[in-house]
């Protein structure tokens, strides 16, 4: 693997829902092996950008490339490289943990002879081996997140995309989910693209972050670079937090724009299900 291989490249990515420009000229490059955090408040366009990259929303050719495959032209090739964990708790509560993972082994064409073993390894990798034969409906929020991680890992993706993986989880479960993500990344060398609005998590776990506001990246760099940059601009000695950086680049008007009704409702729904 060459260090400068590009995992994701968006050039001038735009997507509108009717008159609302959710993503408005997004330029973004994620290198292979990187943990890249896309940050921003509800409604900044993070989820829409993710949905364009995952081929869920149709984009014209030339806007998004995933490992040299154009998402507008070569969807199936892109999908084979992806592991995707959406914002909602998306494990099927009517199936056991093992069955949930087996479904994804099947739809990624894992041959029957290695299916059971691969599913067991994926469950093992997220510490769910003991709970594997319980219905996912009986899992806690953190366990469901880890199960979803196992579902994504079973196909050995090169790019793992996580949309708000720790939303609504308690601090202990959040740490545990991040520990699993980091462990898996270290073991496999896969690229991780994650969205979050928890700035502290991004600061701690992401190599580079892009601060997104109103459909565009407003600041890009390592968390330390961004915080130092702000300290220099303000001429202060104490290092500001990522949240301060965000306030600085987003300027005023942050509060009125913190997500539409639908975003908030979907966030609350996820939070409710996490319990």
């Amino acid at each position, binding site marked *: *693997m060459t*260090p400068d291989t590009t995992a994701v490249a968006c050039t001038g990515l735009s997507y509108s829902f009717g008159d609302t420009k959710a993503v408005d000229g997004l330029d973004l490059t994620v290198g292979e*092996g*990187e943990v890249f955090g896309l940050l921003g408040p509800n409604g900044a366009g993070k989820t829409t950008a993710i*949905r364009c990259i*995952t*081929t*869920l*929303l*149709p984009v014209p050719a030339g806007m998004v490339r995933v490992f040299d495959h154009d998402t507008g032209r070569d969807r*199936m090739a892109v*999908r*084979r*490289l*992806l592991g*995707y*964990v*959406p*914002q*909602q*708790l*998306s494990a*099927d509560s*009517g*199936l*056991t943990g093992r*069955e949930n993972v*087996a*479904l*994804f*082994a*099947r*739809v*990624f*064409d*894992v*041959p029957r002879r*290695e299916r059971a*073993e*691969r599913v067991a*390894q*994926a469950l*093992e*990798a997220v*510490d769910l081996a003991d709970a594997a034969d319980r*219905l996912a409906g009986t899992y806690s929020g953190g366990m469901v997140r880890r199960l979803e991680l196992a579902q994504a*890992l*079973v*196909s*050995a*993706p*090169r790019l793992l995309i996580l949309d708000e993986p720790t939303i609504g989880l308690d601090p202990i479960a959040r740490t545990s989910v991040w*520990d699993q993500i980091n*462990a898996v990344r*270290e*073991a*496999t*060398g896969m690229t991780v693209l994650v969205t979050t609005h928890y700035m502290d998590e991004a600061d701690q776990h992401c*190599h580079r972050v892009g601060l997104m506001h109103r459909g565009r990246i407003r600041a890009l760099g390592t968390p330390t670079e961004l915080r130092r940059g702000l300290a220099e601009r303000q001429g202060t000695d104490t290092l500001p937090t990522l949240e301060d950086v965000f306030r600085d680049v987003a300027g005023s008007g942050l509060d009125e724009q913190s997500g539409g009704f639908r975003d908030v409702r979907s966030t609350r*729904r996820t939070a409710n299900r996490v319990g």
Partner: protein
Amino acid sequence: MSEAPAAPRTASAEHTGAASLLLTPPKPRSGWRLLPARVLAMCAVELQKLRHDRTELYTRAIQPALWLLIFGQTFTRIKAIPTGGIPYIDYLAPGIIAQSAMFIAIFYGIQIIWERDAGILNKLLVTPTPRSALITGKAFAAGVKSLIQAVVVIVIAAILGVALTWNPLKLLGVGLAVVLASAFFSCLSMSIAGIVLSRDRLMGIGQAITMPLFFGSNALYPVAIMPGWLQAVSKANPLSYQVDALRGLLLGTPAHLALDFGVLAVAAALGITAASSLLGRLAR
């Protein structure tokens, strides 16, 4: 940034050795082998769910049992419906099998809307599964569910003394007719789901169309006694062809099997096409 996959491990070092399979992506299935694999995957999920929770299987057996018991027994005595010389309850049984299978399939779209809301659908759409393969898989999964329901109703009918065939070939044909018709009705439901996008609206429409589909077919009475306009409706109603095939196979009444299976297969194919092209609206 550590690039090396073999970097020294801390917390879960024990997994690194075991997780060897998780480092190599599976070899893609190509061409024609993809569709049957996806259909099998969806059917497996449906069966697993039924195994964990059989409540639906039991509660859904009540209504067809009551149709046969109350409606069937009574109308057998009245002898008001020309059945071509067989007891009315025998005549009714294939109609009720078809109806109970249709009831399952026609509300299948609710499940896909639930899966959309839960994020399950989005996750499946990001797998190497073309939309048409996903819908075909769902359609046959609905078929499997209906098939189990059909077995239950056939057993109930047999207990009530309906003289059904036990010829395995004919029963296989019954299974095929049930699966094809359910594939069509579930695709009809998923197409409506793709248009109305909400569970409540789909419930309303589902209930509004089941009644005319059922009564506008030959499930309860021969088409010949219907007024002309309703006969036309019945001719365009796949349920009529399903019932005709089931009656012919189970009771040995005169049937148009080639036409019946032809219509059911074409209807299923059209349904899959329509539902696949509307699936994108649900993913948005």
